[in-house]
Protein backbone atom coordinates (compact mmCIF):
# COMPACT_ATOMS: atom_id res chain seq x y z
CA UNK A 1 0.00 0.00 0.00
CA UNK A 2 2.81 2.40 0.89
CA UNK A 3 4.50 1.69 -2.43
CA UNK A 4 1.26 2.20 -4.33
CA UNK A 5 0.55 5.69 -2.97
CA UNK A 6 3.95 7.01 -1.89
CA UNK A 7 5.09 7.87 -5.40
CA UNK A 8 1.93 9.56 -6.62
CA UNK A 9 2.36 12.81 -8.49
CA UNK A 10 0.21 15.81 -7.60
CA UNK A 11 -2.04 15.11 -10.58
CA UNK A 12 -2.45 11.42 -9.76
CA UNK A 13 -3.33 12.31 -6.16
CA UNK A 14 -5.85 14.81 -7.52
CA UNK A 15 -7.44 12.13 -9.75
CA UNK A 16 -7.75 9.73 -6.80
CA UNK A 17 -9.15 12.46 -4.54
CA UNK A 18 -11.66 13.64 -7.15
CA UNK A 19 -12.88 10.12 -7.89
CA UNK A 20 -13.38 9.09 -4.26
CA UNK A 21 -15.04 12.36 -3.21
CA UNK A 22 -17.35 12.42 -6.25
CA UNK A 23 -18.48 8.83 -5.63
CA UNK A 24 -19.22 9.63 -1.96
CA UNK A 25 -21.10 12.82 -2.87
CA UNK A 26 -23.15 10.88 -5.43
CA UNK A 27 -24.22 8.28 -2.85
CA UNK A 28 -25.00 11.01 -0.32
CA UNK A 29 -27.13 13.15 -2.60
CA UNK A 30 -28.55 11.04 -5.43
CA UNK A 31 -30.75 7.99 -5.77
CA UNK A 32 -30.62 5.42 -8.52
CA UNK A 33 -27.63 4.16 -10.45
CA UNK A 34 -28.11 6.34 -13.54
CA UNK A 35 -28.40 9.55 -11.55
CA UNK A 36 -25.35 8.65 -9.49
CA UNK A 37 -23.18 7.81 -12.49
CA UNK A 38 -24.13 11.10 -14.13
CA UNK A 39 -23.37 13.01 -10.91
CA UNK A 40 -20.02 11.25 -10.43
CA UNK A 41 -18.96 12.23 -13.93
CA UNK A 42 -20.01 15.86 -13.46
CA UNK A 43 -18.35 16.30 -10.07
CA UNK A 44 -15.21 14.44 -11.16
CA UNK A 45 -14.82 16.59 -14.27
CA UNK A 46 -15.62 19.74 -12.28
CA UNK A 47 -12.85 18.92 -9.78
CA UNK A 48 -10.36 18.42 -12.63
CA UNK A 49 -11.38 21.54 -14.54
CA UNK A 50 -11.33 23.78 -11.47
CA UNK A 51 -7.97 22.40 -10.30
CA UNK A 52 -6.36 22.78 -13.72
CA UNK A 53 -7.92 26.23 -14.11
CA UNK A 54 -6.59 27.42 -10.77
CA UNK A 55 -3.22 25.90 -11.65
CA UNK A 56 -3.09 27.97 -14.85
CA UNK A 57 -4.20 31.12 -13.01
CA UNK A 58 -1.40 30.66 -10.47
CA UNK A 59 1.24 29.86 -13.09
CA UNK A 60 2.40 33.49 -13.65
CA UNK A 61 3.08 33.84 -9.92
CA UNK A 62 5.27 30.73 -9.71
CA UNK A 63 8.38 32.52 -11.02
Amino acid at each position, binding site marked *: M*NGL*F*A*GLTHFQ*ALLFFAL*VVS*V*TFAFLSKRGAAERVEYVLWVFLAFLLVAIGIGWLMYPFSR
Partner: protein
Amino acid sequence: MSEAVKKQGTGSLGLGISVALASWAVPGLGHLMLRRWGKAAVYFLCVGGLACAGLAMRGGIFGADATDMFDRLGFFADMGAGVFYFLAHMIQTAGPDVAHASGDYGTRLFATAGILNLLTVLEAYEIGRGWRT
Protein backbone atom coordinates in the same frame (compact mmCIF):
# COMPACT_ATOMS: atom_id res chain seq x y z
CA MET B 1 -36.50 -1.42 13.34
CA SER B 2 -34.53 -0.43 10.28
CA GLU B 3 -37.18 -2.03 8.04
CA ALA B 4 -39.79 0.10 9.77
CA VAL B 5 -37.65 3.17 9.18
CA LYS B 6 -37.39 2.26 5.52
CA LYS B 7 -41.09 1.62 5.00
CA GLN B 8 -42.78 4.21 7.17
CA GLY B 9 -40.15 6.94 7.27
CA THR B 10 -40.25 6.91 11.07
CA GLY B 11 -37.33 6.60 13.43
CA SER B 12 -36.29 7.56 16.90
CA LEU B 13 -33.74 9.71 18.64
CA GLY B 14 -32.09 6.62 20.13
CA LEU B 15 -31.73 4.94 16.76
CA GLY B 16 -30.44 8.14 15.21
CA ILE B 17 -27.77 8.60 17.86
CA SER B 18 -26.72 4.96 17.86
CA VAL B 19 -26.30 4.76 14.08
CA ALA B 20 -24.53 8.14 14.06
CA LEU B 21 -22.05 6.94 16.68
CA ALA B 22 -21.56 3.65 14.82
CA SER B 23 -21.01 5.54 11.56
CA TRP B 24 -18.42 7.74 13.17
CA ALA B 25 -16.58 4.84 14.85
CA VAL B 26 -16.43 2.69 11.71
CA PRO B 27 -17.33 4.34 8.40
CA GLY B 28 -20.39 2.63 6.94
CA LEU B 29 -21.32 0.74 10.11
CA GLY B 30 -24.35 2.94 10.80
CA HIS B 31 -25.68 2.32 7.31
CA LEU B 32 -24.99 -1.39 7.79
CA MET B 33 -27.19 -1.28 10.92
CA LEU B 34 -29.87 0.42 8.82
CA ARG B 35 -29.51 -2.34 6.20
CA ARG B 36 -28.24 0.05 3.55
CA TRP B 37 -25.70 -2.47 2.31
CA GLY B 38 -24.57 -0.61 -0.80
CA LYS B 39 -24.05 2.70 0.95
CA ALA B 40 -22.26 0.99 3.83
CA ALA B 41 -19.78 -0.66 1.46
CA VAL B 42 -19.19 2.48 -0.60
CA TYR B 43 -18.68 4.71 2.44
CA PHE B 44 -16.31 2.25 4.07
CA LEU B 45 -14.26 1.85 0.90
CA CYS B 46 -14.19 5.57 0.08
CA VAL B 47 -13.41 6.86 3.58
CA GLY B 48 -11.07 3.96 4.31
CA GLY B 49 -9.37 4.32 0.93
CA LEU B 50 -8.76 8.03 1.40
CA ALA B 51 -7.55 7.57 4.98
CA CYS B 52 -5.20 4.69 4.14
CA ALA B 53 -3.89 6.53 1.07
CA GLY B 54 -3.21 9.58 3.22
CA LEU B 55 -1.33 7.48 5.75
CA ALA B 56 0.57 5.61 3.04
CA MET B 57 1.68 8.96 1.62
CA ARG B 58 3.03 9.71 5.10
CA GLY B 59 0.59 12.49 5.80
CA GLY B 60 0.54 14.23 9.16
CA ILE B 61 -2.15 13.50 11.75
CA PHE B 62 -3.24 16.33 14.03
CA GLY B 63 -3.19 15.57 17.73
CA ALA B 64 -5.43 16.74 20.56
CA ASP B 65 -2.65 19.06 21.76
CA ALA B 66 -3.27 21.49 18.89
CA THR B 67 -2.09 24.99 19.70
CA ASP B 68 -3.68 27.17 17.01
CA MET B 69 -7.06 27.28 15.29
CA PHE B 70 -5.88 25.62 12.07
CA ASP B 71 -4.43 22.69 14.01
CA ARG B 72 -7.66 22.39 15.97
CA LEU B 73 -9.64 22.33 12.74
CA GLY B 74 -7.25 19.68 11.44
CA PHE B 75 -7.73 17.64 14.61
CA PHE B 76 -11.52 17.92 14.25
CA ALA B 77 -11.33 16.81 10.61
CA ASP B 78 -8.96 13.92 11.36
CA MET B 79 -11.10 12.72 14.28
CA GLY B 80 -13.98 12.34 11.85
CA ALA B 81 -12.28 9.30 10.35
CA GLY B 82 -13.11 7.32 13.49
CA VAL B 83 -11.27 4.03 13.76
CA PHE B 84 -8.76 5.10 11.12
CA TYR B 85 -7.69 8.00 13.32
CA PHE B 86 -7.13 5.77 16.33
CA LEU B 87 -5.27 3.15 14.26
CA ALA B 88 -3.27 5.71 12.29
CA HIS B 89 -0.04 5.06 14.16
CA MET B 90 -0.39 1.32 13.55
CA ILE B 91 -1.15 1.75 9.84
CA GLN B 92 1.53 4.40 9.31
CA THR B 93 4.55 2.58 10.68
CA ALA B 94 7.11 4.92 9.06
CA GLY B 95 5.61 8.03 10.66
CA PRO B 96 4.62 11.28 8.94
CA ASP B 97 6.90 13.12 6.53
CA VAL B 98 5.35 16.44 5.59
CA ALA B 99 8.65 17.86 4.42
CA HIS B 100 7.89 16.30 1.03
CA ALA B 101 4.93 17.16 -1.19
CA SER B 102 3.60 13.61 -0.97
CA GLY B 103 3.27 13.86 2.80
CA ASP B 104 1.46 17.16 2.45
CA TYR B 105 -1.04 15.60 0.03
CA GLY B 106 -1.45 12.73 2.47
CA THR B 107 -2.35 15.15 5.26
CA ARG B 108 -5.14 16.61 3.10
CA LEU B 109 -6.39 13.20 2.01
CA PHE B 110 -6.69 12.00 5.61
CA ALA B 111 -8.51 15.18 6.68
CA THR B 112 -10.87 14.80 3.71
CA ALA B 113 -11.60 11.23 4.78
CA GLY B 114 -12.63 12.55 8.19
CA ILE B 115 -14.88 15.27 6.74
CA LEU B 116 -16.52 12.84 4.32
CA ASN B 117 -17.19 10.47 7.18
CA LEU B 118 -18.83 13.26 9.18
CA LEU B 119 -21.18 13.79 6.21
CA THR B 120 -22.08 10.09 6.25
CA VAL B 121 -22.64 10.35 10.02
CA LEU B 122 -25.18 13.14 9.42
CA GLU B 123 -26.91 11.07 6.76
CA ALA B 124 -27.07 8.01 9.03
CA TYR B 125 -28.53 10.18 11.80
CA GLU B 126 -31.19 11.59 9.47
CA ILE B 127 -32.16 8.09 8.29
CA GLY B 128 -32.23 6.88 11.89
CA ARG B 129 -34.54 9.72 12.87
CA GLY B 130 -36.79 8.99 9.91
CA TRP B 131 -36.16 12.36 8.33
CA ARG B 132 -34.69 10.75 5.25
CA THR B 133 -35.59 7.51 3.52
